[in-house]
């Protein structure tokens, strides 16, 4: 009998939770935003989503097959990256550009650095920024009902008025997944209930950003402008970024204090990019820039061990 027994180190029981279940939860949480995207932008949005997801999974699978690595497409992380990138693209973007962006995200940002868990910045956002730099015009051309329209943030920047209710519901120009605040919040609540994410990063991010915008409005003579604040909060990629991209485990700090510092940095940078930069949007750059700060943030926020708090 003795040779039949398994011997291993403790513990001998394991929780049911798995990586793929976590990834699947995030995908489920993105479904409301995806559905609104398809509803607002039509069938082409659905095609963008399907293509991005399929190409992401295929790229990862083919690379791992060619490199004789363990196939990891079942963990759902590639599908998630594809979906997130699709939700960050304008509906009118030529499909070949979307494909290029997905391949860049999966191959260069994720796989070349060692696959899941090893990438130093969010692959979907890196893919988006790659496209933004390479194809600026196509990436900033937003259409609604077939007509090219400025996004609410762009309108805000040029001083026009915006409809906050429409921004909350999602019936505005923008990328496929970012327009509906309510759909994103439904997904976020699901993730909070499933304990996939905590409030630390998104809450500090959004609050810091809100404070920055209030101060900015006061400083530039607009006074205390709630409408300006609300449109900044509901506009652009802030909600999608704060709830779904800034909370990406791999590229955010593992320490609790670090997550709060990370959120504050994100809020400040997004505010600065949006108000002082050339472009109306700043979420993507803020997040991938802060991704690079993560190792530093973690280094200074190593928690004190239990019973060691009093000493250094």
């Amino acid at each position, binding site marked *: 009998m003795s040779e039949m027994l398994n*011997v291993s180190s403790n513990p001998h*029981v394991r929780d049911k939770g798995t990586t793929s279940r976590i990834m699947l939860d995030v995908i489920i949480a993105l479904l409301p935003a995806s559905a609104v995207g398809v509803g607002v932008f039509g069938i082409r949005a659905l095609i963008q989503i399907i293509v991005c997801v399929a190409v992401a999974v295929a790229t990862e699978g083919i690379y791992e097959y060619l490199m004789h690595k363990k196939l990891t497409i079942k963990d759902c992380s590639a599908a998630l990256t594809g979906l997130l990138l699709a939700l960050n693209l304008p509906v009118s973007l030529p499909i070949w550009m979307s494909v290029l962006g997905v391949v860049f995200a999966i191959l260069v940002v994720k796989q070349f650095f060692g696959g899941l868990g090893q990438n130093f910045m969010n692959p979907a956002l890196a893919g988006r920024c790659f496209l933004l730099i390479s194809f600026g015009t196509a990436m900033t051309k937003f259409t609604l009902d077939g007509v090219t329209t400025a996004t609410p943030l762009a309108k805000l920047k040029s001083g026009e008025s915006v409809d906050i209710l429409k921004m909350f519901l999602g019936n505005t120009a923008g990328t496929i997944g970012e327009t509906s605040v309510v759909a994103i919040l439904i997904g976020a609540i699901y993730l909070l209930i499933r304990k996939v994410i905590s409030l630390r990063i998104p809450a500090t991010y959004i609050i810091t950003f809100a404070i920055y915008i209030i101060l900015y409005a006061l400083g530039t003579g607009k006074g205390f402008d709630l409408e300006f604040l609300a449109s900044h909060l509901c506009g652009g990629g802030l909600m999608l970024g704060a709830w779904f991209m800034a909370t990406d485990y791999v590229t955010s700090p593992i320490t609790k204090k670090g997550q709060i510092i990370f959120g504050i940095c994100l809020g400040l940078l997004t505010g600065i990019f949006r108000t002082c930069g050339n472009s109306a949007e700043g979420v993507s750059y803020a997040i991938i820039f802060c991704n690079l700060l993560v190792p530093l943030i973690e280094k200074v926020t190593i928690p004190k061990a239990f019973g060691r708090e009093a000493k250094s």
Partner: protein
Amino acid sequence: MSILTFKGGVHPYDGKELTKDGQVVEYNPKGEIAIALSQHIGAPATPIVKAGDEVKVGQKIAEASGFISANIHSSVSGTVKKIEPRLMANGGKVNCIIIENDGKYEEVEIKKPKPLSELSKAEIRELVKEAGVVGMGGACFPTNVKLSPKNENDIDFVIVNGAECEPYLTSDYHRMMEQPEILIEGLKVSLTLFEKAKGIIAIEDNKPEAIKKLKELVKDEPRIEVKQLYTKYPQGAERMLIYACTGRKINSSMLPADAGCVVDNVDTMFAIYDAVIEGKPLIQRIMTITGDAINKPQNFLVRIGTNQSELIEAAGGFKEEPEKIISGGPMMGFAMSSTDVPIQKGSSSLLCLIKDPVSAVEESNCINCGRCVDACPENLLPSRLAKVARQGNMEEFEKLNGLECCECGSCSYICPAKRNLTQSIKSMRKDVLASKKKK
């Protein structure tokens, strides 16, 4: 009353319903007995019998060989066959006194000690030492040493650890339910050593019957209080228990006494009672034989040195061939390569699982999710520690407080990538501690 706990921890399936009901059955061994000379932390005991000697139940057969060591007594009557190394539950080999059991259980003459009120503190400690009492929760630290802190006036609390936070184990529960009076008497003995101290019996709230029973019994005891703990693993880990009961924190380089506490397991209190009130040595303990592979899971009162295979038979044998057998609980116990090993003073359980949940899963990449950080009761970063451990980076390991790890297993348990974090950290800790000793 408030429910006490700590930060972190996990909630594994507790499996206690398998053995919660029913009475503890006394089991007397059939075959030969192998009594290990090292059943405690510290120096192995020195044998004082040789092959061919006749021994009786309760006769001292090996003597403590240093300050931190413990006496060992025969649990049966019979003839000493030989002294040879035998395999232990943790996989190591230890010198054992092998005794041919004559099945008569003739007892050595026991001199009943003076009543507790007439004993001096030194006499009480001597009785505990003489009886070979060690911490029976698994660590097996000699109890007389624990009961002799540098300054006994600094001890504010004597805590009985009735948390029993390890899944599947119900031995302490049965002790508390079946003979609560003895537990309280044992605690009173300990309290006579520390006039200033209060006694605390700490029990997880998944054992409401035990809490109720003991509360009822101590309601007229001004120095003893029953405290209800939140059910969470590792609530019974010494540092977590002290924190939950007193709000005081100790780290790896401190002893409970540094926080004014003495912590003893439930079964140890029984051993203290036997030693000081009855004058009996520690030769029996309570043990849970359980798991889905066992026909009749139950608790036994067993004799130290009994072969563990006998207990599987006593519990009705295997329902199904198990993939894994664990000595102790599933979170911190040792996986055994064979059940042909003797029971020691610290053997709390034999857990037989049809399916091994660990070999069924494969490690994948860490996704930095931080669940291990949330689960770690010591407030460490287990995924980082495991990473630097695998790199062999001792310096960084110490910087990240790796030596504070209590090896509770919560990080590996919770990891969604199924990484063996505890294993990596544990072996690195051993290396670091060994290299420190060299210096």
